[in-house]
């Protein structure tokens, strides 16, 4: 169970191998990777920067992860979120959950990314031909997170 916030890129293959290494109770691994797109709201995006609130980020991500552990029988989980300056195609976030069976692994992964998107204090700023702009929060993200409250 681990949460990391870092400027550096991550190696998806190595992270997943490390996550499951030595634990043969794991039968399924759910993974979500978020990447920087080169278009948003119909406008070209040439770069992105990510700001966060370090002490609160750690606390929120740890709480979200603890909630996932309480809901699903997970053998391992990992959240890595990058901050700083990113380019289209770059990795932003990795969420992975391992369990004995696929349903818990996939559901817990979806839960973690849905909650992270609405609770973890990160803010994206995009560079576009019209200038830099802060990304607006989306109502669809709130709806995605709300489905786990039922």
């Amino acid at each position, binding site marked *: 169970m681990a949460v990391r916030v870092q400027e550096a890129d991550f190696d998806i293959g190595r992270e997943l191998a490390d996550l499951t290494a030595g634990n043969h109770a794991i039968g399924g691994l759910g993974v979500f990777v978020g990447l920087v797109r080169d278009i948003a709201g119909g406008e070209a995006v040439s770069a992105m920067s*990510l700001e966060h609130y370090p002490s609160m980020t750690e606390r929120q991500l740890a709480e979200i992860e603890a909630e996932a552990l309480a809901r699903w029988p997970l053998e391992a989980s990992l959240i890595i979120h990058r901050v700083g300056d990113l380019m289209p195609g770059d990795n932003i976030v990795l969420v992975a959950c391992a369990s004995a069976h696929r349903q818990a692994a996939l559901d817990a992964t979806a839960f973690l990314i849905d909650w992270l998107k609405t609770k973890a204090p990160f803010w994206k700023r995009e560079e576009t031909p019209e200038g830099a702009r802060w990304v607006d929060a989306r109502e669809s993200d709130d709806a995605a997170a709300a489905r786990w409250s039922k």
Partner: protein
Amino acid sequence: MKLMYFAWVRQRIGTASETVDAPAEAATVEDLVAWLKTRGPGYAEAFRDTRAIRFAVNQEYVEPTHPVAAGDEIAFFPPVTGG
């Protein structure tokens, strides 16, 4: 108390954090916002529509009616957009 600002709230106010001695009548987050708005045009602009702002006291989300006290770390920021 320590105040922290993020994203466009930080840009409009022009600083990332500051330590202030708020007046005694600033007993809640919304009272504190009302006082901050009087501190200059950047603050007034940042807090013009408080429905667009989220609040955290000591790293936990709170409602505008939440009490504040000396020694608290209070953060103001737009809805989050990570992931």
